[in-house]
């Protein structure tokens, strides 16, 4: 090989290196341009709204009354209502679950749990929404008493099985192995659910004259809508549970072992240690998890489309429906005239979703980073 050909080959190799580097940078640039253009395109469509009177800006009525206006206030309210009910259901359950998984579950079981949670997170929301709206909502509408009883009866059954195990350990020798108690828990929760259904049926026989609708009106003075905030809370709660669980579990697991060892050596019980030492230490991570779940719930579309009933009311009642911003956009935009007032107002709704999720995500990320730095 002569000196010249070697140089030429070297140049070609350098050129290739440079080229791929530039291409990679192009990939990065495309990313930045994408997120900027999402903001830009939405702003471009909605800016005429800001040039007109305040009423029009909030989409309360069109400029000349020619097109039916869409007020965003009930939709903003509906989005918040849905997210709040989802968190009311998801936060206690999934934070407790994360605490249990990180502090009391054997390592091997935890490893088998992780892929299950991941698959749970991957279930498409249209599937959850469909089953929630078409099956769960009518089912709950005819088992309202059971729904009321379920929290009490399930926790009662869990405690009862626990007490029984300690009173008569011989009966439960099979489950003494650490980690096998999870099967016992499974049985307990199922039994609690069954108990709620049975007692619900008994209560129905005793107190129900003519269906739940009349009972709600006579006893509580409210109307019961089949597709309501409680069902949304349950279904959307299930959708955000994997997020809260995964992130809080991670936050609870990075708390240094020395913390809990110190607490245990001073005579605290395992539960006291978990709740008073580990939980506060991971507080920021759990807060971040809740914030991320909140932002997911705000932007979630298919579940609210199916389960919320899509009635733009301003009513905090747990048993009435609502309409969320995302559902409004998804259902109305296909019918909106291009560049009409409804069209622009729906773009404004999308922009509100974008900005609010962006803000909440950013706060969550900052909180998470602080926690990571503290225990790094």
């Amino acid at each position: 090989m002569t000196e010249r050909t070697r140089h030429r080959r070297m140049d070609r190799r350098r050129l290739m290196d440079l080229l791929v580097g530039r291409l990679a940078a192009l990939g990065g640039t495309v990313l930045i341009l994408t997120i900027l253009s999402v903001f830009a395109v939405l702003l471009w469509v909605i800016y005429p709204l800001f040039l007109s009177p305040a009423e029009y800006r909030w989409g309360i009525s069109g400029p000349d009354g020619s097109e039916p206006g869409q007020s965003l206030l009930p939709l903003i309210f509906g989005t918040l209502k849905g997210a709040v009910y989802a968190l009311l259901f998801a936060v206690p359950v999934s934070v407790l679950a994360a605490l249990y998984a990180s502090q009391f579950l054997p390592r091997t079981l935890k490893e088998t749990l992780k892929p299950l949670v991941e698959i749970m997170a991957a279930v498409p929301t249209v599937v959850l929404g469909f089953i929630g709206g078409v099956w769960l909502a009518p089912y709950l509408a005819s088992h309202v008493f059971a729904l009321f009883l379920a929290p009490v009866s399930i926790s009662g059954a869990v405690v009862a099985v626990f007490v029984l195990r300690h009173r008569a350990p011989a009966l439960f020798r099979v489950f003494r192995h650490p980690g096998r108690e999870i099967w016992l828990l499974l049985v307990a929760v199922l039994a609690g659910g069954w108990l709620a259904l049975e007692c619900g049926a008994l209560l129905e026989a005793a107190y129900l004259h003519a269906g739940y609708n009349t009972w709600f009106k006579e006893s509580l003075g409210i109307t019961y809508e089949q597709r309501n905030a409680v069902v949304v809370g349950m279904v959307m709660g299930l959708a955000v549970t994997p997020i809260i669980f995964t992130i809080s579990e991670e936050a609870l697991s990075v708390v240094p072992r020395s913390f809990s060892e110190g607490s245990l050596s001073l005579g605290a019980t395992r539960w006291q240690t978990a709740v008073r030492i580990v939980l506060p230490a991971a507080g920021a991570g759990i807060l971040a998890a809740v914030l991320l779940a909140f932002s997911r719930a705000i932007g979630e579309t298919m579940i609210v489309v199916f389960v919320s009933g899509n009635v733009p009311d301003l009513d905090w009642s747990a048993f009435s429906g609502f309409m969320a911003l995302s559902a409004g956009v998804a259902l109305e935009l296909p019918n909106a005239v291009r560049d009409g007032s409804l069209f622009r107002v729906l773009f404004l709704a999308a922009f509100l979703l974008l900005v609010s999720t962006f803000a909440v995500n950013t706060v969550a990320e900052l909180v998470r980073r602080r926690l990571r730095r503290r225990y790094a």
Partner: protein
Amino acid sequence: MGSKWSKDDALIWLSGGGLVLCFLMVAGLVLVIAVQGLARFWPQDLTRYVLRDGSIILGHETSRAGVRTIGSAGERSVAYRLRVETGNRERYPQGYVWLEEARIAGQDNPREAVVVEQVRAGEIFGFLDSFVDDGAVVARGYDAVRAHYQAQYPELERLRRQRALSIVLSSADGRQHTVSLANVRHIYAPNAMTAWDRIRHYAAGAWSFLWTPPRDENRHGGVFPAIFGTAAMVILMSVVVMPFGILAALYLREYGSPGPFLNAVRIAVNSLAGVPSIVFGVFGLGFFVYFLGGTLDRLFYPEDLPAPTFGQGGILWCALTLALLTLPVVIVAVEEGLAGVPLKLREASHALGATRFETLWRVVVPVVLPSILTGLILSVARAAGTVAPLMIIGAVAFAPELPVDGVWPFVHLEREFMHLGYHIFDTGFRPAGGEAALPMAYTTTLLLLVIVVVLNAAAIGLRSRLRRLYSLSAGQA
């Protein structure tokens, strides 16, 4: 002998109950979908209900519900009623009736009762009366008509084009009903079926669900166009998302030098991952459909205006929008793979005089290939299950023309298409076919769920194998 226990241990158990409850609820919902979705093709026995007023109804029970009433003396009672699927939508427009149990005088399962599946207008339940060939009755009675039908079945396609063949059915209460054979897809007598017949019927039903288009306003038929449309859209999306995702991941891990630009790219990835899917749909409508599509129409299809070609929702715009949505998924997966490549490998390659690109191409990429595959699988699963943006740009309830066919230019990127997830929304939310379309929606839901779960399980398996591999090679150091 009772061992010591404290209130604290009970609380630990309660927290475990939270964990178990989550899984049980998801498992319960999946079970409902599986049971309802799988039951659809199983032939159900037909029951003849004789009512106290003398009328007779043929059908099968789908559910039983109690109605509470309060008597004049204040006594409470529960009356049960059956929801009976009746077919024959000409007589029962809803396709079902409610029968109070108190009104039923007797019931039996006649062996001769048949189900006639029509091409249009759903199913008819009844009894075979006679076979009519060009106006002449050639067979009469269950056995003769059945034998005649089965004997001619192989030639039916040809025969019914030449002659006017029809079957006369008598309904349970004796009314006559003539069905042209051109409108008959299948005739079977569920009560006379053996277990083996039922299994064959089930398999044939499941097969035609996968390979035929929907009929009768989504009440019957299959979802083939939706499967095809989803696959075509997902392939198109992968072609776009994979190069950009891999390049961006390479920039983040390999080429980017620390600085404000790298930080900006990192922030962009995180923000993109947090954008709600519906917002991508709105962006896609504003940018791809109206801006890009409108511009393309003005430049290349001015003769068709104002009718839009690319300026309306279509498979290309959906693919591009979902590419943006799944970009972070690919980037995260590839980045994880790149991070797992042992430093020693790179150092050895650099020490032998390789450039950065040569190291990347010959050393890093072969190791990262499975991670790239993981990213692809995860993004495909995500795209198959995302519906909200498609409601705004391009997926439709019924598109007879597939986006790929034998007409030049073969691939029609501007066409609207059917999507499995959108199909669930369409049949489940405001079904044009009424409640009769719901069983089909359950089956579609089950299909989508199986696809997404299998894809995700594959990705998880692949990734855990990789992690073991990395930890093994790191352990040998």
